[in-house]
């Protein structure tokens, strides 16, 4: 019996200059609950100004391997003229481009308007094809729930952690003998 709440994927934006990035998921009963839980789980440290959540089932995803094996069928072209009421949908496009060690998955790259998720993927590949994509996520824009961008909310959701410097390892940097003193001739560090 599966009674668990829906799973929501979480996107976190660290600074205005950075895109929203997929950080992981939470289970929650509704969008506000998902945003609050996401905040508690993924923003216990200062680096955040905004969060988006979307139900996992509303995400269309393709890895490079999946696309190579099973190209999505030629997107059904919307032939009805716009005058008959067809409105293209807006989709948010997320992309992963590197195998490098990272704590985030796909990055938000922009929006496309398209007639279907497959069509959105096709447009994304054209518009954001400058770098090879290892994975794509396509999300209907109206399915995203976003944290309130108002400065008051940003302050109360994300700022309280900034003065909790004791949560940062640098706070303790000067104690004891430095680890490097005890490091033996190990192979080069691959942590960076």
């Amino acid at each position, binding site marked *: 019996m599966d009674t668990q709440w829906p799973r929501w994927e979480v996107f976190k934006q660290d600074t205005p200059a950075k895109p929203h990035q997929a950080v992981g998921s939470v*289970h929650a009963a509704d969008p506000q609950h998902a945003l609050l839980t996401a905040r508690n*789980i993924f923003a*216990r440290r200062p680096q955040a100004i905004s969060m988006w959540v979307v139900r996992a089932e509303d995400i269309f995803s393709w890895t490079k*391997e999946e696309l190579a094996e099973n190209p999505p069928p030629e997107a059904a072209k919307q032939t009805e003229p716009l005058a008959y009421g067809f409105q293209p949908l807006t989709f948010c496009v997320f992309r992963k481009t590197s195998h490098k060690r990272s704590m985030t998955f796909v990055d938000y790259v922009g929006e496309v308007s398209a007639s279907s998720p497959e069509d959105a993927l096709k447009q994304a590949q054209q518009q954001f094809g400058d770098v090879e994509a290892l994975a794509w996520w396509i999300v209907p824009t109206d399915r995203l729930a976003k944290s309130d961008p108002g400065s008051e909310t940003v302050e109360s959701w994300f700022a309280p952690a900034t003065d909790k410097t*004791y949560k940062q390892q640098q706070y*303790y940097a000067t*104690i004891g003998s430095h*680890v490097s003193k005890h490091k033996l001739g190990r192979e080069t560090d691959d942590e960076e």
Partner: protein
Amino acid sequence: MPAKYGLPSDPDYSLRLAEFEARIGRGEKIEPGDWMPEEYRRQLIRMISQHAHSEVVGMLPEGAWINRAPTLKRKMILIAKVQDEAGHGQYLYHAAETLGVSREAMLEALLSGKAKYSSIFNYPTLTWADIGTIGWLVDGAAIKNQTMLAAGSYGPYSRAMVRICAEEAFHHKQGKEMVLFYARGSEKQRQMAQDAINRWWWPALMMMGPHDADSPNSEVLTRWGIKTKSNDTVRQEFINEHAPEILDAGLQVPDPDLHQDDKGNWVHGPINWDEFWQVVGGNGPMNKERLEARRKAHDEGAWVRSALETYAAKLQKATVAV
């Protein structure tokens, strides 16, 4: 849709396996949706869910000291650390879910006592000095292991590890600071620190698991890049860092055989694996209490979950009505 999880009986298994292993060899990350051997998936679910449970149960020994912390500063640090461990459990459940196992099934396995978690959390925290020692030695051992796992081949697990390691560094340092502070303190404080180290040193060494020769899963885990270093290698890294630091602080390592070999490695005496298997098998000092505490927390949270569900249902109705 082609099967994502390959079985040796599949006609194309060996071909796909070769491609898969070549990808790992090139340092590529395997992502949800990519082909992988069913055995790779099974091993990952086993490891990640055990790891998630360890983070969750790991809150209990330290949580027990939050309301007894000696100063407000130490209390805030401890609350932040325990909160982090809750988050680590969540990151890891997420990573396991990407392999098609539900969070509810994993929690159910934990609460029913079917699931395993790190045996270190089945030891009691007897004094406040245990809190510092856990940060220094237990989180210190965890970091060594997690840093190794962060280099692993499965994208979601690796990412969870990178995120966790960044936070663990705080856990490690606050603990080390506390123990070194006690080591410089009064006679009584030095005794407390030494007593805690005496009790946690060996369980910390056991955290890396059995010796390589007795570790049956290691070969396949290494070949598929799930583990990137062996148990004994990680254990050696831990001892090489922590043994000299404990000695520098004027404290003792509770191992009469501990010595440095000609390569500079600190060599430990025999580990009591009987004790390890006893604790893994459910007979550790705190196994029962830990599970009972988890179940109690789960049951006592039932009204919160039900309130949230009721509210969500109301919202849903309101949206439909509009």
